[in-house]
C-alpha cells in the first residue's frame, strides 16, 4: 500500500473515532492555522497609521498561497459575536520575510468591520481568510512610465504595488482631506526623498475635489503612462471618461471597493436564482409565500419563525424581519428565515 493510501485509511479510522464530528474539529482546538485546516489567520499587531486608519498584521494559516501586489483578501471577522466578511487590499510586499501579510483599514462612519479593526481588534484574535484575489495587478512586462491615481483608502492596493516593485518613472497623485489624513505619508515622503517617486498630494479640504482635467497640469504626460486608479466611484467614473475621451482607456486600470450599494426599501423585485424566476414582492408578505406562489419549491416548516426549517441563502439585496423590522443585507454565508422575512428592496434568494 502506498503511503497516501495508508494515510487515507488512517484518516478514515480517525473519522470513525470522532464521529459525528471530524478530526479537524478537535485539531482546530489546538492548531487552527495548521496545514489542511480551513484558511484562517491570526492578528499579531495593529499599528495606527492616521487618526482613523490602521495596519493590521496577520499571520496567515499554512494553507495561504501568497498574493500578487495590488490584490485584495476577504476576511471574516467576528464583530459583536457576528461573523462579517469584508475585502481589504493587501499592503505588504509579496516577499515579506516573516510570511505575514498586512491590510490597511480606514474606519468609515457606520462601518462595523472597519471601525472594529481600527479601534478594537486585539492581537491574538483569529480571523477567517480567503485566498488573495483580484486583477488590479501589475503586468508581467514592466511599463516604462507609471501613474498611480488614488484617493483616501484607495491608496492601499497601490501601496502594496509600490512596496513590491520599483519602476524607473513613477508618479502618484493622491487625494485626502488634509495632510494628516494621508495614509503612509512618511513612507511616501521617504520614497520621494530617495527619488523613487514623484508625489502630488491634493488636499481636498483646501484644494477642493480633484478636477480630472487638472491632470494635464499635474502630470503633463499622463496619457503615456500605464495608470492604476483606486478611490471613490466619482473619481473612477471621471477617470474612465477622461481616458476614454482621449482614446487611451486601455492604459487605465481601476479598482472599485464597493461595486454595489444595497438600498433597503419596502418591497422589491425578488429573484429566485436557482429556479430563474423573478417576481414583484411587497414589503409585508413573507418571502416564503412569495416563492410558493411563484411556484418555487421552498423549504418550509412552522411558518412562524421558530423552527428554522426554511432558512435559505440570501445572495443579494436586503430583507426585513417582519417581527423586529431588522434589515439583513446579503453577504456570503448569510441565511434568512423566509417565513418571517420580506423583501426590503430587490433581492436574490438561492432557490
Amino acid at each position, binding site marked *: 500500500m502506498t503511503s497516501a493510501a495508508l494515510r487515507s485509511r488512517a484518516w478514515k479510522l480517525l473519522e470513525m473515532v470522532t464521529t459525528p*464530528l471530524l478530526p479537524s474539529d478537535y485539531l482546530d482546538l489546538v492548531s487552527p492555522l495548521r496545514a489542511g485546516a480551513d484558511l484562517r489567520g491570526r492578528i499579531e499587531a495593529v499599528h495606527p497609521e492616521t487618526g482613523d486608519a490602521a495596519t493590521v498584521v496577520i499571520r496567515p494559516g499554512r494553507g495561504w498561497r501568497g498574493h500578487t501586489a495590488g490584490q485584495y483578501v476577504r476576511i471574516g471577522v467576528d464583530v459583536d459575536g457576528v461573523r462579517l466578511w469584508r475585502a481589504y487590499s493587501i499592503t505588504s510586499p509579496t516577499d515579506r520575510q516573516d510570511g505575514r501579510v498586512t491590510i490597511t483599514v480606514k474606519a468609515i462612519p457606520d462601518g462595523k468591520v472597519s471601525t472594529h479593526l481600527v479601534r478594537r481588534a486585539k492581537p491574538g484574535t483569529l480571523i477567517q481568510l480567503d485566498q488573495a484575489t483580484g486583477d488590479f495587478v501589475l503586468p508581467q512586462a514592466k511599463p516604462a512610465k507609471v501613474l498611480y491615481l488614488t484617493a483616501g483608502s484607495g491608496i492601499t492596493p497601490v501601496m502594496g504595488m509600490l512596496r513590491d516593485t520599483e519602476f524607473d518613472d513613477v508618479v502618484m497623485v493622491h487625494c485626502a482631506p488634509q495632510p494628516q489624513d494621508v495614509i503612509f505619508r512618511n513612507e511616501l515622503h521617504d520614497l520621494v526623498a530617495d527619488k523613487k517617486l514623484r508625489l502630488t498630494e491634493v488636499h481636498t479640504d483646501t484644494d477642493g475635489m480633484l478636477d480630472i482635467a487638472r491632470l494635464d497640469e499635474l502630470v503633463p504626460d499622463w496619457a503615456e503612462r500605464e495608470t492604476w486608479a483606486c478611490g471613490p466611484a466619482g473619481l473612477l467614473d471621471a477617470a474612465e471618461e477622461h481616458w476614454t475621451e482621449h482614446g487611451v482607456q486601455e492604459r487605465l486600470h481601476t479598482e472599485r471597493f464597493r461595486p454595489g450599494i444595497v438600498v433597503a426599501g419596502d418591497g422589491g423585485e425578488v429573484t429566485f436564482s436557482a429556479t430563474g424566476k423573478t417576481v414583484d414582492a411587497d414589503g409585508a408578505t413573507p418571502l416564503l409565500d412569495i416563492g410558493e406562489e411563484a411556484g418555487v419549491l421552498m423549504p418550509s*416548516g412552522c411558518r412562524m419563525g421558530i*423552527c*428554522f*426549517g426554511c432558512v435559505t441563502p440570501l445572495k443579494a439585496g436586503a430583507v426585513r424581519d417582519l417581527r423586529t423590522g431588522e434589515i439583513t443585507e446579503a453577504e456570503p454565508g448569510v441565511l434568512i428565515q423566509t417565513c418571517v422575512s420580506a423583501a426590503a428592496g430587490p433581492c436574490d434568494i438561492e432557490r
Partner: protein
Amino acid sequence: MTAIDPTAHLTTEQIEELGRELDAIRDEVIAGRGEKDAAYIRKVISAQRKLELVSRGVLLFSIFPPAWLLGTAGLSVAKIMDNMEIGHNILHGQWDWMRDPKIHSTTWEWDHVSPSEQWKHSHNELHHTYTNVIGKDNDLGYGIMRVDEDQKWHPFHLGQPLWNFINACFFEYGIAAYDLELGKNLHKRRRKNPEFRARAKAVGRKIRKQVLKDYVIHPLLSGPSFLTTLAATFTANLVRNIWTHSVIMCGHFPEGVQVFERRSIKGETRGQWYLRQMLGSANISGSKAMHFMTGNLSHQIEHHLFPDLPSNRYAEVAVKVRALFEKYELEYVTGPLPKQVFSAWHKVFRLSLPNKKPKVKTPDREQELVAA
C-alpha cells in the same frame, strides 16, 4: 385537561397585551446579543470537546477501577453537554445569528442516533408549533403513553410505566423511532414509501457510526481494557439517556401543565400562542450547574416562548416572564428536579389506568377556548 379553564379570567385584549409584553422581552434580548454570548457557546463547545477527549483517554486504562469511574463520569457529562446545552440549542437556531457555519442549525450534527435534520422537523416544527395540542403534538406521551385524561385509554396503556422506563434507558433510540414516526410507518403500505426508506437509512447510518465508535473502535483501541471500556461507553450512553429523558419529562408532564384541544388553536393569535406555551410547559428550579446540565431546558417555559433565543439568556428572561405570570395570575409550574420527576412519573402511573370517573363534558369550555 383541568375542568377549570385557567385563562377564563383573561380578556382578549389582555391576552394580546401579554403577547406584546413578551415580544418586548424577546426584542430586548435580540438587540443585546453579542460578543459575550458568542464567547459563551464557543467556550462550552471547546470544553465539551476537551472533556470528551480526556475522558476517552482515561478510559483507555479503564481496566483500573478509578480510571473507569473517572472516565465514565467524564464521558457521561460530555455526552449530556453535547446533547443538551450544545446540540439541542444549536439545532433550534439559537446561535445562527453568529453566522459561523460551524455552529449553525443547518450544519450541526450531534452525538445522537437521530439525525439532526429529522429531529429538527419533529421537534422544532411539530412539537414547538403545536405544543401540548392533543392529536397534533406527538410529544404528549410520544405515542406510547397517555399523559392526559383527555387522551383515550387503551389496555396497552396498562404497561406504560414499563414502556416509559425502557424508553428512558434507550431514549435516543426512542427519539429516532419517534422522529421516523415508526409506529405509523411500519404499516405494510407505508414501509415501501421511498421517502420513509431514505430517512430510515439515514438513521441506520447514524446508529452504525455511533455503535462502531462507542462499542467497537473505542474498546478495541483500549486493548486489554476492551471490556471495561465497552461497559463505560454503554454506561455513559445510559446515563445520558436517563438524564435527558428525565429533563424532557419535566418539561410538559408534571401536574399542573395544561393540554389543549385541536379546535382551540384554530385562528390562534400570537398572544394566544404565547399563552399556550406558558401553560403547556413546566420548569425545574435549581442551581446554575443544574440549569447548565439540563441545557437550560430547566427554563422550559422560557424556551417554549422563545425557542430561538440563546440558552444562556433564559435565566435573565425567566425573571421577567415570571413577573408576567404573576401579573396575569397564571400558574408558573416549577419545582426541584426530584419533585418534578416524581410528579411526571406519578402521572404516567396514574394514567396507565382508565379515568376514575366519567369525565363531565363541558361544551362551554370549548366555546371559551375558541373565543379566548
